[in-house]
């Protein structure tokens, strides 16, 4: 009996004792909710995560936040689907008690998750999700430091006008991103009074055989094709367009910086030559001092050029940490106010958030570049910047038939 009592007492002490130390040195948790498995664009998520991890390491090496507390990243995979995204966010909020969440890449997921963020009062960042609806809803807890679709559509419309293209074909995926860009391009053509015809074909992301759609485009005889897929569909469109003789005879523009990734040439071989794409970072760009330091560390650690997703992931974690310090709190509501009130050093400029009209609410837009690979196996660092004119490093090339 007394032995039993002793065991029970010991067990009770064992349970109570670890709970006793004050939570003063408990880490501050920041959630990273990003695609890490299909059908999401897992490459993108991994790159964002790289940047976020490097930021957390840097912050902790410099004493952490709130007087010595370490920053801990809690990673959840949203798989590119709204359901997994919402489940992941809920877990981050209720189980891990994160202060803020970043890492969002797919617009469809972001639009589902931001409602939850608003309800639970946790600031969240779109790291690379660009549909206008995300910031157009004017929610208090949604922030973005990435280009939005109206900007993207206007950017390529300016390029189309400059090149004198009269027949523009677009093949877009049936997600918020693809459908959004299709609508924005139509609006941009109208707003900028563009005298070109636009033909948009929508495809299902699950489909692998896009030959019939590309054949229809080819038979329409376009001057340029806009490739509005995300992840695997981008490669499928390029490959199959080359196979039917559509590209590179007709130039093709990829709507985001997938061709900047290391595996681009491995997946396409020569078929990627002459592809044009939108990027937000180039190795020859001048960065802020924080950006330059990050770039040097990234090159050393990974032996390759940093990619925009990693840079943005890094900048957002640094921003969140500074906001936590400014708010002197790890509670989401206070941190959100500090984010809105503050100015933060990003990797490519000073970031601040205002309440503008339409989608320009808590939205900071980085500059865009249009790049081209004029030769096979061109490293990203050697790609030509073909637009805008004030930043170009070379001429746009269309191969002779």
């Amino acid at each position: 009996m007394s032995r039993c009592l002793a065991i029970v007492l010991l067990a009770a002490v064992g349970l109570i004792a670890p709970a006793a130390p004050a939570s003063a040195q408990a880490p501050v948790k920041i959630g990273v909710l990003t695609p890490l498995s299909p059908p999401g664009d897992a490459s993108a998520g991994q790159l964002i995560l790289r940047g976020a991890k490097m930021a957390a390491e840097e912050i902790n090496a410099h004493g952490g936040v709130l007087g010595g507390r370490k920053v801990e990243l809690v990673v959840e995979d949203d798989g590119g689907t709204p359901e997994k995204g919402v489940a992941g966010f809920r877990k981050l909020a209720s189980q891990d008690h994160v202060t803020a969440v970043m890492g969002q890449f797919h617009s469809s997921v972001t639009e589902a998750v931001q409602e939850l963020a608003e309800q639970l009062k946790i600031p969240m960042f779109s790291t690379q999700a660009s549909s206008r609806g995300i910031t157009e809803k004017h929610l208090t807890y949604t922030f973005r430091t990435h280009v939005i679709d109206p900007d993207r559509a206007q950017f390529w419309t300016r390029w189309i006008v400059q090149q004198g293209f009269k027949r523009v074909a677009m093949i877009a995926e049936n997600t918020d991103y693809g459908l959004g860009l299709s609508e924005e391009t139509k609006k941009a053509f109208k707003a900028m009074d563009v005298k070109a015809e636009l033909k948009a074909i929508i495809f299902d992301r699950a489909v692998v055989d896009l030959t019939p759609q590309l054949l229809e485009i080819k038979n329409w005889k376009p001057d340029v094709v806009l490739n509005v897929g995300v992840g695997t569909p981008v490669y499928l469109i390029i490959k199959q367009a080359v196979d039917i003789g559509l590209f590179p005879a007709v130039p093709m523009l990829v709507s985001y910086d997938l061709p900047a990734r290391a595996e681009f040439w491995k997946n396409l071989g020569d078929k990627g030559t002459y592809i044009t794409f939108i990027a937000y970072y180039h190795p020859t760009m001048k960065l802020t001092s924080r950006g330059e330091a990050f770039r040097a560390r990234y090159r050393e650690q990974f032996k390759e050029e940093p990619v925009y997703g990693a840079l943005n992931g890094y900048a957002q974690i640094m921003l969140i940490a500074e906001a936590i310090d400014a708010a002197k709190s790890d509670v989401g509501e206070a941190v959100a106010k500090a984010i809105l009130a503050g100015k933060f050093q990003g990797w490519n400029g000073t970031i601040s958030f205002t309440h503008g009209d339409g989608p320009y609410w808590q939205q900071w837009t980085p500059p865009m570049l249009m790049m081209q690979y004029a030769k096979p196996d061109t490293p990203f660092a050697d790609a030509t910047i073909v637009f805008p004119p004030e930043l170009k490093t070379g001429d746009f090339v269309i191969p002779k038939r």
Partner: protein
Amino acid sequence: MDTYALAQYLLAGLVIGIIYSLMALGITFIYSIMKMINWAMGEFYMIGSYVQYALLVSVLGPARWYLALPVSMAAVFLLGALTQRLLLRPMYVGVIERRDEYATIITIALMVFFRNLAVVVGGPNQYAPADYARPTAIGPLPISGNRFVALIAAVVLLTLFYLLIKKTWIGRAFRGAAQNRVGIQTAGIDVLRLDMLAFGVGVALAAAAGALLAPDFLVYPENGAISTFKGFEIIVIGGLGSIPGSVVGGVLLGVIEALGSVFLSPAYKDLYGFLLLIGLLAFRPTGLFGERERTI
């Protein structure tokens, strides 16, 4: 209607229909012997594409894809046989009561398992082996070199399969098991071993489709999903359990999708196959070559 455009679409549809009929053949062959539907066929397609890619980048080099193809098929055959032996044989030895539900649960679980295993082992990103052949043309119509080669290989495999079934002793055993599973045992055939071989052959055909289409449709964990539902569409159109039905169904599906794309819109290409399916089932529920059967 521009005949050149029509011809391009028809060719594209025909080529892909024949290649997908390999999938359908695998599903229908397994069904005819084992009387169960294998929902994980797409994942064996996916494994076939991964093995092909791995062989080409490591041991064989990109030019010897025609050597890698039989090796991937053999590897997936062995995997299939092992899977059948361990997970599916209990259905046939009186251990499992609710056989159909068991088969469905096990094969769907395998589907989820293999997909996630691919993410863990190969990473979530896509790979692509180098092209098997340069883009070429059939008459005036351009065609991807890969699809042309895949078309030839699919026809060869379908022919070899036909010869296996019609001209060999084991083929006769398969036909017997499909007609009367109990009767064949009285003839002294080990029907359980036959099940294992049939499953292996069926999934090897799916692996062949995956290996052949790898350069065009890429290698990534989800690449089997669409081929599964194309395979099922084809077997319902052609008739479950019918081998000529798989081939005819495949060609018909390809042609209908092509014609729908030309005369209506390519955006709804996948819808036309299902409309054909619904229409066919309304008038001929057993599919084109299927037969009504009675089971106890």
